[in-house]
């Protein structure tokens, strides 16, 4: 019998769901092996019954629940709790679900400050009150999934590579625990490292790194960090290149920004990076700011509003 799968997106952008669709023909294989019972991106199962007359939000039972996105409002929380109740195992899909993701940058401000700006931009008409009719109330901050429910399988990435989504589903269907990379991006990066450099300072990514041209293989290019560009590779979980292994941003000759979250599940990408820079004699004050080092992992209390 096909495994039943329920999937939903919370405080998310849909990139993780598109990564599922981007499995290509493997998607058709997956569709043969699983029965989706809830998947708002692609099918029409409703929270309150198909006629919209149910009193409570309700999910069908499923063997596996896949949740993308973080938790920011009461409906996100309700969906997460209901899925935990109805699903045998829960996959946190993508860095928003595992660590908060980009939307958790909002955790540096209180809701009032965010709402005040959003409803007073130069194009916005004056309004008396924040909309509240029929929209779910906001929670105080953006939470990763495991701050609210137990998670069985973590699949970080912004978005996770389709190879890993497929690998994780295939493993689950065989009753195995998916094997995911545990190294750092640097461990899988082909660029040339010459050891501790003498750069002292970092420069902003406003000029191209040095390499001989588009024809030059990546393994001939000097490590971008050693070229003086901030690259979050040392403190970021590997895997973004999928089965092809080469880190995706590096293959575009662009430094890593950390989208797979910390190497260790509880790691702090900012602290770890500042330590890595210090041990290489690089002055972090040469950067205009360092909050952005937590741009993918601001959940779990990592980012908070400044005290007044």
């Amino acid at each position, binding site marked *: 019998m096909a495994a039943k799968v329920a999937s939903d997106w919370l405080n998310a952008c849909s*990139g993780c769901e598109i990564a599922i669709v981007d499995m290509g023909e493997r998607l058709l294989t997956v569709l043969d092996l699983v029965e989706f019972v809830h998947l708002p991106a692609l099918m029409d199962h409703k929270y309150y019954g198909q006629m919209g007359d149910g009193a409570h939000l309700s999910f069908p039972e499923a063997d596996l629940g896949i949740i993308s996105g973080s938790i920011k409002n009461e409906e996100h929380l309700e969906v997460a709790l209901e899925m935990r109740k109805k699903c045998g195992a829960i996959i946190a899909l993508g860095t928003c679900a595992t660590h908060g993701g980009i939307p958790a940058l909002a955790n540096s401000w209180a809701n009032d400050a965010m709402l005040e700006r959003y409803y007073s931009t130069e194009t916005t008409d004056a309004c008396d009150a924040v909309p509240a009719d029929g929209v779910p109330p906001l929670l105080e901050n953006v939470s990763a999934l495991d701050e609210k429910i137990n998670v069985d399988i973590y699949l970080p990435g912004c978005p996770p590579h389709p190879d890993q989504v497929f690998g994780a589903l295939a493993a689950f269907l065989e009753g195995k625990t998916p094997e995911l990379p545990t190294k750092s991006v640097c461990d899988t990066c082909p660029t040339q490292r010459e050891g501790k450099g003498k750069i002292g300072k970092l420069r902003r990514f406003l000029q191209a790194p040095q390499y001989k041209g588009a024809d030059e293989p990546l393994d001939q290019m000097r490590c971008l960090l050693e070229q003086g560009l901030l690259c979050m590779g040392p403190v970021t979980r590997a895997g973004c290149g999928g089965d092809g292994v080469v880190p995706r941003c590096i293959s575009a000759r662009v430094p890593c920004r950390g989208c797979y979250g910390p190497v260790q599940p509880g790691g702090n990408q900012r602290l770890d990076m500042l330590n890595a820079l210090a041990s290489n004699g690089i002055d972090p004050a040469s950067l205009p700011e360092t909050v952005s080092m937590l741009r993918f992992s601001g959940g779990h209390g990592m980012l908070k509003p400044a005290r007044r």
Partner: protein
Amino acid sequence: MTETRTIKISPITRIEGHASIAIELDDAGNVADSKVHFQSIRGFEKFVEGKPAEELPRIVNRICGICPWHHHLAANKAVDRCFGVTPPPAGQKLRELIQTIAQAEDKLLHFFFLAAADFVIGPDADYAVRNVIGVAKANPDLAKKVVQMRYKAKMMIEKFAGKAIHPVAAVTGGFAKAMTEEDRKWMLEGMREIYDFARFTIDFAKKDIFPKYMDAIASLGVINTGFIGTVDSAGALNLYDGKIRLMKADGSYTDFDVQDYTDYLGEHVPSWSYGKFPYAKSWNEGFSLDLDNPKGIYRSNTLARINVADHMATPAAQAELEEFRQLFGRPAQATLLYHYARLIEEVYACEHAIEMLEDPEITDPNVRAEAEPKAGRGVGCVEAPRGTLIHDYSTDDNGLITRANMIVGTTHNLGPINMSVDQAARSLIKEGHVDEGILNKVEMAVRAYDP
């Protein structure tokens, strides 16, 4: 004896994002009011403050995982302007090429994965099969071809530009890498194959789908509004750059430079939606969603773009536009025609990508100009699949963001979506009679906009 009740469609499905519908019935069982609640609010306008401007294209692309390239590029254009840097021609061309391929891929996604089930399986079919999985089971060969073509387009972007979703390859001052002659050749070959599929798709839809739904096209979710889109200096539809054309329902229009967008566009804050409802402030008529007498309401996305354009810049798409206009006039108002317009744009996107890949200058190694952080203001704009996408930033002397405003493609359509839902609900739900098929048809009025 009946009583007032509210039907809740939650969530709206086969769209991108979070929204629900509340249809209020009066004591006779007729529709008193319908509201669409757009539920997402993340606060990008606030949390980009203080970040280095050159990092924004890699942050704001997370606004949307379906159209991240468009946010990435609108942001890059805004940052270029803040820092006063102009990308070299090949840098501009690579940005436009990848944006065009992303447009081509997106339209296949929407037509086949999200919308097709309503037409191929049927609007009244059981929800368990009324989806792409049902379409795939009923048409396995077509499904395989669709999946292959989309995969080809996505992998083309990933192989050349590193990341397809949440891109990184456009950078301040241009593009991060040049295109080799080898890249150009395999991408050209791939695009020619996708073009053939685009031709197949529009022919298939014109022959096997649209003729069956002419009644629905003439009635479902039909409203009367203005339109917005981007055109080049000759008035042809342009997805990457040009002037903004704001057209009234009577077909008269004004063109403006996007740097002046605040003179033309405003955003109304409804009490029932986190998402703001943009409107044409420059029409000086205020804002109203009244079905008989809307005020300030215009639409974006495919139908809007082909309505505001005088012509298409490529031959096959131009022939399709002429045929479309013969049938439906200009501006065409029927909401389900968004699907038809989407397939015309698909042909254009493929033709234009091929044109660009045949241009020898695209492999010029000079793809990036150096920039320095400085204080400035810049508005960047492209046509995202769902509409005119505007990013507006200010920076301080150190090039950090001090202020950001964004008007996202889909949001132009939030007011019109609310109107189309209200129109569909009022015409389909009478004297308390409502079933699953009717509720799905109400949602079809939303799906046409591909929000």
